[in-house]
């Protein structure tokens, strides 16, 4: 079916799947670009099907970018299996949501805060830039492994990829990584606070805790209007006005 070179090229292109992200097609065009090397072989025995597959592959699509390979592989496999076009369009539609949710849970709400918080904590205790390097290397190692696995699962299972994903390691890992991310963030926050406020009087530490409490409460109550960044900038402006006015 698909050549090894085609798979390699598709994997490389998936790294830039959001290269032309828009609110209308989301990463539909990126998917079409990544699908090309895999679909080329289809032209050898069905040029008409190849033309239709190219159009389908550029239709609007959204999911977590690191799991886009699942949908891409499944779609390409379905094209080679001669599955009707309407069914392939439906497959694409039904995969986006679950892949987005799983990817967000595993990567954005799990792995990223876990590794970032661990790097912050280790930097704060004096390990210098090495934890930061470790963060980048470990994250990309996992991300590349998941991308390869995603494309392989999609290509192997085609239209049955949904069931294959459900029984894979990913849902369990996505649910399991969250508490560890929470632990790492809890550990990092006091360590980073102490590192950034080293040698400050106790009153500054008390004021820092008070600002932190106000930020959490304010952001929780007024999330849509007052993000922590806006709140911080308002407080900074207030301090500057008071201090420079007094001066």
């Amino acid at each position, binding site marked *: 079916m698909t050549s090894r070179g085609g798979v390699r090229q598709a994997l490389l292109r998936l790294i*830039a799947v*959001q290269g*032309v992200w828009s609110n209308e097609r989301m990463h539909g065009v990126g998917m079409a670009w990544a699908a090309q090397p895999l679909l080329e072989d289809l032209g050898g025995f069905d040029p008409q099907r190849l033309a239709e*597959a190219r159009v389908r592959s550029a239709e609007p699509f959204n999911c977590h970018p690191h799991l886009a390979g699942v949908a891409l592989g499944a779609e390409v496999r379905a094209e080679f299996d001669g599955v009707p076009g309407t069914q392939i369009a439906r497959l694409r539609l039904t995969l986006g949501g679950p892949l987005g949710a799983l990817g967000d849970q595993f990567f954005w709400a799990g792995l990223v805060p876990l590794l970032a918080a661990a790097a912050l904590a280790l930097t704060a205790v004096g390990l210098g830039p090495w934890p930061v390097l470790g963060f980048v290397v470990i994250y990309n190692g996992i991300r590349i492994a998941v991308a390869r696995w995603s494309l392989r699962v999609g290509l192997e299972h085609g239209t049955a990829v949904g069931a294959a994903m459900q029984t894979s390691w990913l849902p369990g890992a996505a649910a399991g990584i969250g508490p560890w991310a*929470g632990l790492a963030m809890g550990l990092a926050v006091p360590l980073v606070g102490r590192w950034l*406020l080293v040698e400050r009087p106790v009153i500054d530490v008390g004021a820092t805790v008070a600002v932190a409490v106000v*930020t959490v409460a304010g952001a929780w109550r007024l999330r849509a209007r007052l993000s922590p960044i806006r709140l911080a900038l308002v407080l900074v402006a207030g301090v500057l006005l008071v201090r420079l006015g007094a001066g």
Partner: protein
Amino acid sequence: MLPDWSAGTLAALLGWGTLVGLDLVSVPQGMLARPLVAGTMTGLLVGDLETGLRLGALIELFALDVMPVGASRYPDFGPPTVAVVAGAAGLPGSWHEMLGLWGALGLALAGVGAWSLVWLRQLNATAIRRAGAALLAGERTAPGRLQRGGLARDAGRSLGLTAIGLVAAAGLRAMPTLDLPTGAALTVVLVGAGIGAALHGAIRSAATTGRLQRLAVGLVFGAVIAGFA
């Protein structure tokens, strides 16, 4: 005091800022855009690792509250972190005088970055609409052409954001320094708000009580270690 960036350093900063900006959404999404990573590398580039680590860590606390999901509008912290680390590098005075002020500039620039992402998506949408007929016809070269255009636009956006950030940083550096109590008050505000942002992000993304429990355990252990360190 204006920064004394050589042409080579300036080119490296603009190049690194562009790469960092591209990393956020377009390519390669390898966490180079995280403030801690962008700041550390910038610190190494300008020969002041400590500034890179501390400013990167401070802005990272705010980034931990942000989920870069799909069509939502989120700040771009990467190029601003590059700019503020480059601007603050090698300044005389203690941490407590300048961390808050420079961190605040980074956050304000990250807001500009959020708008620049909205414009980028609009430009991408226009380009895709223009190529609509080619996509509908299944033209082989259309997706590649659009991809290259999108990447070039994002590179331009990232370069522009880095350049604006560097100009702002040079301007702030040229201004008279704040007195110690004012600078220290700003640092307290930014560190407090950063801690609040990270905790808010952790609580918001805690879908289970297990995660909240671990967060509490981590806070206790972290406080104990911080107390002994």
